[in-house]
């Protein structure tokens, strides 16, 4: 009878989607269900007999362990938010409940249940844009060097200029600086200087007084005022007109603005972070950007490299986007095939991280299974030429590309393509087979 009950208990434990961990009175694991295995990445065999802190490695193991608390107080601890580390070093937010196991008045162990809330926390982060240092993803030298100085930059009040091509994460970097700074509880206001015509730009940035122009029925504060006490992020600063540059210079230099239609300057306490995808120094030399403004905003310069120059970060970014889109789309994609990874590692990413994110989103929409495969990637990525760091192509690669080009020019007529290439039709057939050229794929 007891065996039967144990078997039923085991089936019940393994069928629920909440991690269950039972420890003895020395905090050694005696039971670990399937959901716990899935959340932590460890199998029961690996954790059996180990201390729970050796496996979960939570942020509260040292101080505030819910299981210890429940055992000491001989009562249930409910709904505690804790962060465990899975087998692969990834922090997993969980909600923990803990309860002591008491037999004949004596504590013989404890039971802890934990539910993975990664999806909820990922969505929360997306909405709040509450980025921390660990949210800047990368292990390349360029990123690590930014990492290294970011807390010091955040602590200072100096103006920051972030340079980098489009889609490299300039705004995330700016938000991280803000969140690490003493201004974190004040507003972060992002503004794209290329989004509006000059006249609107001025009223958006500096605001206007009632009656400043025909439709100005009431006073409207500008972005500088909205960011009071916090941080103003001016994206695409290189696209501003010379007239606006003068006004920006005054606002940054004097820390005061003059709303349209006002004669009284308004004091503003705002930290300025500027970003551009242009070479500002070149614009200065060409006379398109004011030199004095350039030196005013270029107190601290951070340069974000294009993704093709930090390829070692691609797997980390893919992992991050898989977690993000699992949360957004409610899917359970667990990995990526080696072939798909190979393509993504060798793509040139003209749109940088933003493009990689779009590729993963595309794959999520098309993927029917639990892993991203080559078929799930966009056609232009699958068929793109492999990015070469050296710029030198092998002879075989040149031959393959020339054949593909000839096929395209000839409208995929092999006879015509062979004539263009100056080879026999059968030789072309042989080479197409040799290079594994799929005409249907190149047609896409």
């Amino acid at each position, binding site marked *: 009878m007891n065996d039967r009950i144990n078997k039923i208990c085991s089936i019940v434990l393994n069928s629920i989607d909440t991690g269950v961990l039972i420890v003895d009175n020395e905090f050694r694991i005696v039971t670990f269900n399937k959901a716990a295995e899935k959340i932590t990445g460890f199998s029961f065999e690996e954790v059996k007999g180990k*201390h729970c*802190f*050796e496996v*979960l*490695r*939570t*942020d*509260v*193991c*040292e*101080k505030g362990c819910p299981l210890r608390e429940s055992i000491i107080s001989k009562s249930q601890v409910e709904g505690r938010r804790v962060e465990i*580390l*899975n*087998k*692969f*070093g*990834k*922090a997993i937010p969980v909600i923990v409940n803990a309860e002591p196991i008491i037999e004949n008045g004596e504590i013989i162990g404890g039971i802890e249940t934990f539910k993975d809330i990664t999806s909820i926390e990922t969505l929360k982060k997306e909405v709040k844009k509450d980025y921390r*240092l*660990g949210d800047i*993803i*990368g*292990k390349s*030298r360029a990123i*690590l060097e930014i*990492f*290294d100085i970011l*807390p010091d930059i955040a602590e200072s009040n100096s103006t920051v200029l972030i340079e980098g091509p489009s889609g490299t994460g300039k705004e995330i970097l700016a938000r991280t600086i803000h969140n690490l700074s003493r201004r974190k509880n004040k507003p972060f206001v992002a503004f794209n200087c290329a989004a509006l015509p000059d006249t609107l730009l001025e009223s958006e940035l500096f605001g206007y007084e009632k009656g400043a122009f025909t439709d100005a029925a009431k006073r409207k504060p500008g972005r500088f005022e909205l960011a009071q006490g916090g941080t103003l992020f001016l994206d695409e600063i290189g696209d501003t007109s010379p007239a606006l540059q003068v006004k920006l210079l005054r606002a940054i230099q004097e820390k005061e603005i003059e709303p349209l239609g006002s004669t009284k300057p308004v004091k503003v306490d705002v930290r300025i972070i500027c970003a551009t995808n242009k070479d500002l120094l070149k614009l200065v030399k060409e006379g398109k950007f004011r030199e004095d403004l350039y030196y005013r905003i270029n107190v601290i310069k951070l340069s974000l490299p294009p993704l093709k120059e930090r390829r070692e970060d691609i*797997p*980390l970014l*893919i*992992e991050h986007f*898989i977690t993000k889109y699992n949360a957004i789309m409610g899917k359970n994609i*667990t*990995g*990526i*095939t*080696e*072939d798909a*990874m*190979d393509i993504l*590692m060798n793509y040139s990413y003209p749109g940088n991280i933003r493009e990689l994110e779009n590729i993963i989103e595309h794959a999520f929409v098309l993927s029917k299974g639990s*892993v991203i*495969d080559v078929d799930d990637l966009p056609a232009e990525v699958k068929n793109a030429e492999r990015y070469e760091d050296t710029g030198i192509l092998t002879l075989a690669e040149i031959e393959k590309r020339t054949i593909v080009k000839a096929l395209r020019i000839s409208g995929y007529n092999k006879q015509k393509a062979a004539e263009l290439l100056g080879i026999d039709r059968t030789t072309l057939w042989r080479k197409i087979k040799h290079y594994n050229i799929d005409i249907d794929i190149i047609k896409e």
Partner: protein
Amino acid sequence: MKIAIPDTNGNVSPRFETCNRIKIFESDTDAANYKEKTIEVSDLSPFEKARLLRKEGVDSLICLGIENWIYHYLTGFNIRVVFGVSGKTTEIAEDFLKGKIHRVINCNYSVPVIMKRRGRWHHGHCKRGRYRGRW
């Protein structure tokens, strides 16, 4: 050689980021003769703790748990990180200085790269592939 171990009551702390003190062991050539010092780090953020190791000129960090981004930061600046180690801090330090502990434990993928063999999925984490290492 200079090694650091996050310490809690004489044992390796469960997590580097939340440890309250770090023990630093230093030896020249004789592993049996080492200098030991303890640094209180309860006021420091996880990143400040990592930066402290760089400032101290530590060669290796031995710990039980460490988050990926701190791991990448330290290894990126040539600090070797040996994780998944538990037990008495001093014994572990002595073993490490004598060269008895040298493995990087549980080095694996966060998101598996799955190899396709003969048209079928080969499940599990790929340990031999091109993308080996901790992400």
